């Protein structure tokens, strides 16, 4: 059973055991417009929460993706190198960016639940 949490920077993290899969939300991909390039971290990279972990570039802007929790990158979604449009087509599933082994699952409590995130986004519009 996985849980998904959301950051104010529009990343989601879906957790299974001590590994979380990170991507950007559907709201974020719509705001970015067509994604043309994704720069992924190296496997083995160690981040603390808030570190710049990846970069996503669209026809409008380049944006940083921040690590939502502390941990080590265990896997990256290499298909994004060839097909960055996956981020637009399937932001919350096939368009995931990287997997991170969390140091401290307690950090998830600092993030938003799906309901909280929906409220948060509503306030932005």
């Amino acid at each position, binding site marked *: 059973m996985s849980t998904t949490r959301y950051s104010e920077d529009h990343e989601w993290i879906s957790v299974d055991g001590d590994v979380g899969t990170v991507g950007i939300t559907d709201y974020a991909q719509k705001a970015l417009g*067509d994604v*043309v*390039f994704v720069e992924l971290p190296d496997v083995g990279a160690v981040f603390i929460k808030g570190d710049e972990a990846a970069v996503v570039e669209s*026809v*409008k*802007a*380049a944006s940083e993706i921040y690590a939502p929790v502390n941990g080590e990158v265990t896997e990256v979604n290499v298909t994004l190198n060839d097909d*960055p*449009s996956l981020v637009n087509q399937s932001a919350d599933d096939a368009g995931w960016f990287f997997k991170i082994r969390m140091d401290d699952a307690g950090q998830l409590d600092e993030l938003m639940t799906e309901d909280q995130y929906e409220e948060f986004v509503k306030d932005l519009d």
Partner: protein
Amino acid sequence: MSMNSQGRASRADNIPGNADSIETFTGHRGLEQQEKLIFEVGDPSRTGVDFADPGKFDPAFGGLERHAPIGLPGLSEPEAVRHYSRLSRKNYAIDMGMYPLGSCTMKHNPRLNEKMARVPGLADVHPLQPQSTVQGSLRLMQELAHWLKTLTGMPAVAMSPKAGAHGELCGLMAIRAALEARGNARKTVLVPESAHGTNPATAALCGYGVKAIPADSRGRVDLAAFEAELNEDAAAVMITNPNTCGLFENEIAKLADAVHDAGALFYCDGANFNAIVGRVRPGDLGVDAMHINLHKTFSTPHGGGGPGSGPVVFSEALAPFAPLPYVVEENGAFKIKEHPDADDTALGRLTAFHGQMGMFIRALAYMMSHGSDGLRQVAEDAVLNANYVMASLKDVMTPSFDGPCMHECLFDDRFLKGTGVETLDFAKAMIDEGFHPMTMYFPLVVHGAMLIEPTETESKDSIDTFIGMMRSLTRAAKSGDTARFSGAPYLAPLQRLDETRAARNPVLRWTPPEQRAAAE
């Protein structure tokens, strides 16, 4: 019958149907020629240059000389001239109309500058000529340096950087050198979120981490957030003033004091100096280094019009670290100081030679023809024109911030909400109306940004035409005329291009048809 304003016929009555529907046999559209790529015109056997036969000689390349054809196109001189003339007619230029591209300062390039740059004694010199034969050119560089130092209130200037971003690199390298001389280069550079993208890139290139500082609700640097990041790791702050929202950072002196109290240095991005030249001296605001885009503030041509130039002025603290070379005057003679003294802390060279002479001539011609009072009026008129645009559009569009602006005015896309038209579509429709669009989606601190910089060289008539066009487009968008926007531009030589596909799958190289066929 269609007539022009003088009553002369401009179109015959017997055109069959819609002129746009006429198919031509050549593919050309009357005066607008369809032009192929340069590799597809001419023939490799043709040439516009007549080389003499070199006769028999022994190559001195040790067998490394090339014998196979190198695949260059072959054009006679008229073919080459026509190729580029035809392409230029598909383009838009400041010489054709208003170019309100915010943050870029697309203003008129006075022809006097061009005339001066073509004076043979200035145009035909070589950087390796004996210095005694180019005293006039060296004096010109010295004179321009004097103007730049006087206008900015700063004691030193590096003339050699070749563009704004190169100037930033020069400034940050000097800052790093000064901090290293104090014993600690420190780790981070603070950059506001509204900054030009080159600012964080420059900091990264100089080995610094970048800390982004958010904007406050007034569109200025959030002072509290800024001071919270200003610790012993902070090497410098890079601030654009006026900033990219077109707003003056009115807490700048306080900000500069805080930077210096923390032992850091203050880099000012001088891209928008054109809004304050003659009115405000950055040296009085506590700036330690600032580049000056000669092509913005001092009207030298942008990009394709000639090489850029980005001199950097320095405070007392940084002057000892300014790069070589520079011009010095000794006993009435000018010479180029090219080599460091034994105890010199100066950075080495940033460029092979001494700077962009052609731009120096143009910038100095501009300064001398305007005088200090004229330059002050340049800034005042630039600010006046931008405020006129803002005031004339704010009832139908949505300005991002309250109050007057500086040399450019920023709108966001709230006024398009619910229309189905986005900033991009709106900009493309402006092309059909005969204008270069404003800057869009920058700065990033507002949603769907539209940044308009009319500059001081537009007349009230031309700005009024622009305002009328913007009001009409706004009305069309709000009244549901989305077709006008969704596929625009319809009337440009090329219509809406697939920017996404171009970015995802860039084709950067021409492939001969036979190779292409073989690959498929």
